[in-house]
């Protein structure tokens, strides 16, 4: 949109990846004179807001400087040799697929830092909290910006330690085991993924994603591709998470502090699906074709399973925890993303990428809301909240109740909001899957996934009824309505959800050319 010179773009992208790391180191040092603030705690939390804000600003400028006429072209690329022995290059770049994810990550992290500035989760020192948050940001942003398989693995691993500590130190009940489950599951997945990445790299002689994508699997035999897809796919599927590898997710989400849940759902899960699109689809197409029906089947089971679990949690007497419920709903939503990818068509993959962003915005918002609800009422247990009649948030805190209802309705995929397009396109893709994939099978998947949307609507409406509506007696107990800082943190998410719902071309115009190119044989 605006013309920015290539070297400035390169610098911006490098800053987005490295800036948070420097900020993390600085957070551990005492504040310099002049920036001491009211107290050391306040100073370091403000430091977090400043750094994430600067990164967000850089990401926005990068998005403005991005040449929107050529979204399929890698832009702002840097390519420096780092470890020649392993052929690891610091190769950064963005195209229409990674740019939205990059901006969304920067936005969500900034909102989390802003939210924590006013509402620091209970736990040890804020300095460590801010440092971990920034390392996490760097790892996630790097995942979407790197174009080297081993660097991708490094970025993938970089988020583990910060997330572990965020859950284990600042989390709620049951945080210890939940944090362990999170890190051990994901590490096992990612080490297996490393084996697959090495197999690809050693057999084709390069770890460069662009070169490999252009090669489009021609230098890899089918058997190598099949093994590689299996290994890499397991690692990515754990992260996504795909049923039946999802079992770490509900616990981690339930135990994590609010900002931890937001980032986990909004950003970390996307690293898995991004890997499917960026690595498996273009680099190992033959292997992917072999596994696509299975991936789709697991995805559909995930959709149905997630919704049924949510229904069970939502019903009266189900002792359902709202955080847990949203976590299970993530399993369902990510099922749609995986289904879209498994169709291997431009429509499906575009839908998957759209659903990725939508899920990040909507579920991020929902986790913010539920976290705030817990701060107000002291519980997220649906039965305790709603009691016999319902929690009556509409009456007690109208704005808060309205926002929650908005989040729930957006999550169930109401047309006109962001949740709709991604899932519809994924179903569309399944209606006409890529050549070589069994159409009857995908039609069946489509029918079941469609059933899943109905179930999703059912449990989301139940949640709205039980939390937002209720008897007059419930209404008498006041709940603080939305406060200024909460408005600041949530409004961008609401606005973007509406924007993406009403004007999907804003995203699809970016992703579509890049996806077309990726499926046809790599990026330019």
């Amino acid at each position, binding site marked *: 949109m605006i013309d920015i010179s290539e070297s400035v773009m390169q610098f911006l992208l490098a800053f987005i990846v490295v800036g948070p790391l420097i900020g993390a180191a600085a957070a551990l040092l005492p504040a310099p004179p002049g920036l001491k603030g009211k107290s050391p705690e306040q100073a370091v939390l403000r430091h977090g807001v400043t750094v994430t804000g600067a990164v967000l600003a850089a990401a926005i400028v990068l998005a403005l400087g991005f040449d929107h006429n050529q979204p399929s072209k890698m832009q702002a690329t840097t390519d420096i040799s*780092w*470890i*020649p*022995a*392993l052929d*690891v290059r610091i190769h950064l770049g963005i195209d229409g697929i990674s740019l939205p994810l990059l901006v969304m990550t920067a936005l969500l992290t900034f909102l989390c830092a802003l939210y924590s500035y006013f509402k620091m989760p209970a736990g*040890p020192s804020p300095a*460590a909290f801010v440092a971990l948050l920034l*390392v996490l940001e760097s*790892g996630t942003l790097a995942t979407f910006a790197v174009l080297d398989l*081993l660097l991708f*693995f*490094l970025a993938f*691993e*970089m988020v*583990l*330690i910060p997330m*572990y*500590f965020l859950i*284990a*130190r600042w989390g709620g009940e049951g945080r210890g085991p939940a944090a*362990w489950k999170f*890190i*051990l599951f994901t*590490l*096992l997945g990612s*080490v*297996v993924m*490393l*084996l697959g990445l*090495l*197999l690809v*790299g*050693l057999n084709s002689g390069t770890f460069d994603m662009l070169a490999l994508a252009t090669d489009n699997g021609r230098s890899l035999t089918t058997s190598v591709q099949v*093994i590689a897809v299996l290994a890499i796919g397991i690692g990515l599927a754990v992260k996504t998470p795909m049923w039946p590898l999802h079992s770490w997710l509900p616990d981690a989400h339930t135990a994590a502090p609010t900002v931890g849940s937001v980032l986990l759902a909004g950003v970390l899960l996307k690293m898995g699906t991004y890997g499917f699109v960026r690595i498996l689809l273009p680099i190992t197409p033959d292997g992917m074709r072999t596994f696509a029906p299975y991936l789709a089947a697991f995805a559909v089971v995930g959709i149905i399973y997630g919704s049924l679990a949510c229904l069970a949690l939502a019903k009266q007497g189900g002792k359902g925890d709202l955080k847990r419920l949203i976590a299970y709903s993530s399993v369902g939503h990510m099922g749609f993303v995986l289904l879209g990818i498994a169709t291997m068509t431009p429509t499906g993959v575009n839908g998957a990428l759209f659903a990725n962003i939508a899920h990040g915005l909507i579920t991020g918002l929902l986790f913010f809301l539920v976290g705030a609800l817990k701060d107000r009422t002291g519980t997220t247990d649906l039965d305790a909240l709603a009691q016999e009649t319902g929690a009556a948030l509409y009456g007690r805190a109208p704005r808060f109740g309205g926002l929650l209802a908005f989040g729930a309705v957006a999550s169930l995929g109401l047309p006109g909001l962001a949740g709709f397009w991604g899932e519809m396109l994924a179903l569309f893709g399944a209606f006409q899957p890529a050549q070589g994939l069994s159409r009857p099978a995908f039609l069946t998947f489509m029918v079941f996934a469609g059933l899943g949307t109905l179930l999703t609507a059912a449990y989301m409406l139940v949640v709205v009824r039980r939390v937002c509506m209720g008897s007059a007696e419930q209404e008498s107990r006041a709940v603080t309505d939305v406060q200024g800082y909460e408005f600041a943190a949530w409004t961008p998410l609401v606005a973007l959800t509406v924007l993406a719902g009403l004007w999907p071309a804003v995203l699809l115009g970016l992703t579509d050319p890049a996806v077309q190119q990726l499926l046809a044989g790599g990026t330019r």
Partner: protein
Amino acid sequence: MSSVAQSVVQSVDWLAIAPPTIAAVVGLVVLVADLFVRDDRKALLGWVSVAGLAAAALSLLPLLDGDRSTFCLRGDATVCSYTADRFTLVIQFLVLGGALLAALLSASAIKDAQGSGKELPEGEFWFLLLSSAAGAALLPASRDLATLVVALEVASLPAFALVGLKRGDRQSAEAALKFFLSSVTATAVTLMGVSFLYAATGTLYLTEMASALQDVDAQLSTLAQAGVVLTLVGFAFKTAAVPFHFWVPDTYIGAPLPVAAYLSVVGKAVGFSGLILVTVVAFPAYADVWGPAMALLAALTMTVGNAGALRQQATRAYSAVRLLAWSSVGQAGYLLVPIAAAGYSKDAERAIGSTVAYALMYAAVNLGAFAVAALVARTKPLNRISDYRGLYAAQPVSALVLAFFLLCLAGLPPGIIGLFAKVTVFSAAVDAGLGWLAVVMAVNVVIALYYYLQWTALLFRAPEGEPERHRIPAPLTAAIALTAVLGIALSGAPQLVLRFADTGLF
């Protein structure tokens, strides 16, 4: 010079053999000087030893320009007993650097032990440490089996005495005896293997043996095969490979902490460099025998080591050292993976380069972890893992550094060098088609993360009592700082050690 004298007296390339020689000579000097130095000046011996090890390490510099050989066969100058090639220099650097760091740890340990009733005899201690280091530095340069076994013994015998050196400590003496008896058995087995091989091939030189083994008389081939397997036993013992690992935990606990650190790094270096020399240089013809054997050994070693480390209870006495001991067994398993891969791969030298790179990373961070353990042991002599709780509140820098070392050992960022060292090992395995071993290793990496991260997390918990601060002795500070700087520098530029995984070392 007359021709008779020429045939009897060899010309020796003193520069090439300087590293082990300097270490040995300084060791003797310290032993003699001990007799003449007043008791209150004994600390001087320590500094002389540290300087000697530093000088030995510096003497590697002039050798960098090219391969040198000495003690060659008369008539055939290509067959030598001592060669200083790239492999030798890297391992000698590793051994001497490791010994130097262990010496720094020892300097403060000896000072602290004074007046406690468990003094360490200084002159003997430094002599033994330097002799062992000399043997360990000689080993990677040896190119015939006799020198190799002699070097192995020169490295080991002083180590037994070092383990048992705590005066008036029964545990120490028992540990030394256990270590001694099992080690001697392993060496005897190796010697038998060597004799079989000599019988089958008629030579002890590694390169000559390699060609002779290619066409062994059919009647002798069983003998040669048995010789190959038996020879490996002694070195596998030193590496602490399963099933030759049982001495490790007790020996590490019984030994003074710096000696345990020394054994965990230099002792292992002796073992795996010996293994590399015999397998890759001497027995390439029998790769189908030792390749699978090494792969099996590697899988067993890492699994048993990590399972052992997992079982440690945080509140048991010496559990920190015990955990480091078991984890060092697990790490030995990773070190063996590329050697096994060398048996399957066409490019054996590249594969073993991964072992060398991994060992360099391991040496730096493991010694660092031991250094922080030595620091904690000054105030909490029982050295339980639970004693590390809240270390961050008392000593933030030490705690951060220990966390970094542990995460390097686990192979997770921010320990980037640990991560990439593991990647090279994995890539050697995948490249050689050892998929199953890579998967076993992957599972082990996850198991290992559990105990490393558990320990790391403990460092940052709220302390139980009021944190106590106290001064850290200079040598200990130096050791911690040195290893931390090394670890961080390597994380920024992993190429520094990983380049060995990319080129031929011999």
